[in-house]
């Protein structure tokens, strides 16, 4: 009797739900739920900036801590303004050619959803921009860095983004039209950021003494590993919004995306630790944190289109990449302070390939793999090429490299006249009287 009554109620509810009025109400609530989900995810992606700041700040020496934090803080601000001004239009404006967006510049009016979408994408642009910060830490002029950040957020990132994701305002990016799979930006966000970082460190050169006269690598440990670990956790947490929000809607499929994301990070860290154990090396905290982020970067492209077992495999290989690439980088005498290029650039490449290899229901499709490879190559040529030209131009005009005296004193003192730890900074490498303003 009770079950009959329940069935009647369910039928009545179903009728009510399919009635036009109920449908309209459902659409409104659906849009509201999507907005809430995306706005929340945007907040989580914004929190990743704090993660980057802590991770990079902790990996730098204490005399450069404020400089690293300031770069992270201000590139969000400058990048946010530039992305609103031109980046969003270039990336998501009407893209009839497939190469570049041509509308939605400095938007002041539009449908409600556009604002949510813009806010979310603004956070993505900030992420791409800030990746270069850590790699170039401890020897770049602050102003030069900010100019570079403007170029990344206003040109390099949005133009490539228009190829892979463009079409929000109409039209379609050429890579997107080819079937390029990069769900949340292994290539679009992370590899692009990584290639910009590579260009930056080549133009800058290594920090003083990072490599000995005979080319031997000298590690320069960061000043606070607790910050590194905390930064790693916050980045991981923020990735829930990064990948989960890339559905651009509150969908039931988000759970699997988040499981894959988490598995990728776990597998990355474990993969790196196993790699170290196999080579009889110590399992370092910095390497482990970087490997988990490498796992997150690599799973970002295919987290919506691959099975969890493949997510684990993707993460493990990313962990190995974050262990091997820094060694090769050191052999090239390229000084990447936080290993951003291996974590974001190379893990982004692997993740994009993995998204093609492990595409659910269409595994190892060579055509798909070829499209993925084209996207990866296009990202490198565009991202690295334009960044290299930009940094060379910056070096020629306003100067990019801090001189030896600045490196001795620390950029906190020379660029900001502020110390990260005024009560505890014991090393006398600068004249503290210079701080009295």
């Amino acid at each position, binding site marked *: 009797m009770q079950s009959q009554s329940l069935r009647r109620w369910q039928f009545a509810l179903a009728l009510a739900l399919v009635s036009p009025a109920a449908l309209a109400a459902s659409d409104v609530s659906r849009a509201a739920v999507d907005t809430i989900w995306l706005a929340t995810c945007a907040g989580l992606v914004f929190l990743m900036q704090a993660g980057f700041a802590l991770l990079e700040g902790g990996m730098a*020496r204490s*005399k450069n801590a404020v400089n690293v934090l300031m770069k992270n803080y201000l590139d969000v601000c400058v990048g946010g303004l530039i992305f609103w001004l031109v980046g969003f239009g270039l990336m998501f404006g009407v893209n009839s050619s497939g190469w570049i967006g041509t509308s939605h510049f400095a938007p002041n009016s539009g449908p409600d959803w556009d604002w949510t979408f813009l806010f979310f994408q603004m956070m993505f642009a900030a992420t791409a921009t800030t990746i270069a910060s850590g790699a170039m830490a401890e020897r770049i002029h602050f102003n030069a860095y900010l100019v570079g950040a403007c170029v990344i957020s206003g040109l390099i990132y949005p133009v490539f983004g228009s190829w892979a994701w463009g079409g929000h305002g109409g039209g379609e990016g050429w890579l997107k039209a080819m079937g390029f799979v990069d769900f949340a930006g292994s290539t679009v966000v992370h590899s692009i950021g990584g290639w910009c970082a590579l260009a930056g460190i080549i133009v800058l050169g290594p*920090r*003083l*003494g*990072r490599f*000995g*006269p005979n080319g031997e690598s*000298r590690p*320069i*440990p960061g000043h606070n590993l607790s910050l590194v670990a905390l930064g790693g956790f916050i980045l991981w947490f923020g990735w829930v919004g990064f990948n989960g929000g890339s559905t651009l809607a509150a969908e039931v499929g988000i759970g699997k995306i988040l499981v894959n994301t988490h598995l990728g990070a776990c597998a990355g860290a474990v993969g790196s630790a196993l790699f170290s154990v196999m080579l009889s090396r110590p399992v370092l905290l910095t390497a482990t944190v970087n490997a988990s982020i490498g796992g997150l970067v690599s799973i970002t492209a295919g987290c919506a289109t691959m099975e969890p077992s493949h997510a684990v495999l993707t993460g493990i290989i990313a962990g190995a990449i974050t262990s091997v690439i820094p060694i090769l980088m050191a052999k090239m005498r390229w000084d990447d302070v936080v290993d951003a290029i291996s974590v974001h650039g190379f893990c982004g490449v692997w993740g994009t390939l993995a998204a093609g290899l492990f595409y659910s229901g269409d595994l190892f499709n060579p055509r798909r793999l070829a499209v993925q490879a084209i996207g990866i190559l296009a990202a490198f040529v565009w991202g690295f090429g334009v960044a290299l030209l930009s940094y060379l131009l910056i070096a020629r005009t306003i100067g990019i490299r801090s001189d*030896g*005296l600045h*490196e*001795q*004193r620390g950029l906190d003192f020379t660029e900001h006249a502020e110390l990260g730890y005024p009560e505890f900074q*014991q*090393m*006398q*490498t*600068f*004249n*503290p*009287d210079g701080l009295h303003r």
Partner: protein
Amino acid sequence: MEFEQKKLAIEQGLTPFLGGEPLANALRLWEAKYSRGHTFALTGFISELGDGAALAAPPAKVLQSLFRALNNPPASLPAHRDRAASTTEAQGSPGHAIHTCTLLVDTMIDRLPPDKGEEIRRYMLDHLERLPQPTPVLNAIRAWLGQRRTIVLPIPETALTRLVNLAYVGLCEYVGPIKADRVLHEAVLIVETANAGSGFPVRRLL
């Protein structure tokens, strides 16, 4: 002859050829290296002054002037109060800055194994052109780095800061940046203690 009288005589002997800061530096050099030596050691003193390009006059003439001053009766020497006044004036002067700078760099280098120290000196000699200074000044610095000769020429404080930094960069290259920071820090503390009361704070050179 008493030490103070001897010093006043050297000053009197050098006055026709040197004045101001170069004279003060020359006296400091004499005091540090030649004051306890025999009179004939003055030839070495004059030769060192010539290498530092402080003296343009012929060495024989300077030597003659010094001998004459040393043989004069004490009454003809400059008054003590004048001397005291000039010493007070020299406190915190470029001469003190040079002394502090060389002491700091020497202390940094001395804290390394001898072979590394030599590498740093060589590095500094090879990269001295980074200091935008006139040739005589660079020669004086070369003589100090290569032959441990005292610098008697005036050098601006900014150039001295650059000189300390050159040593720091050399340290970074040869022993790494972490050790370079530590060596510089320790050397600053040592010089601060040794130089207390000189009137020139070593940190001004950082």
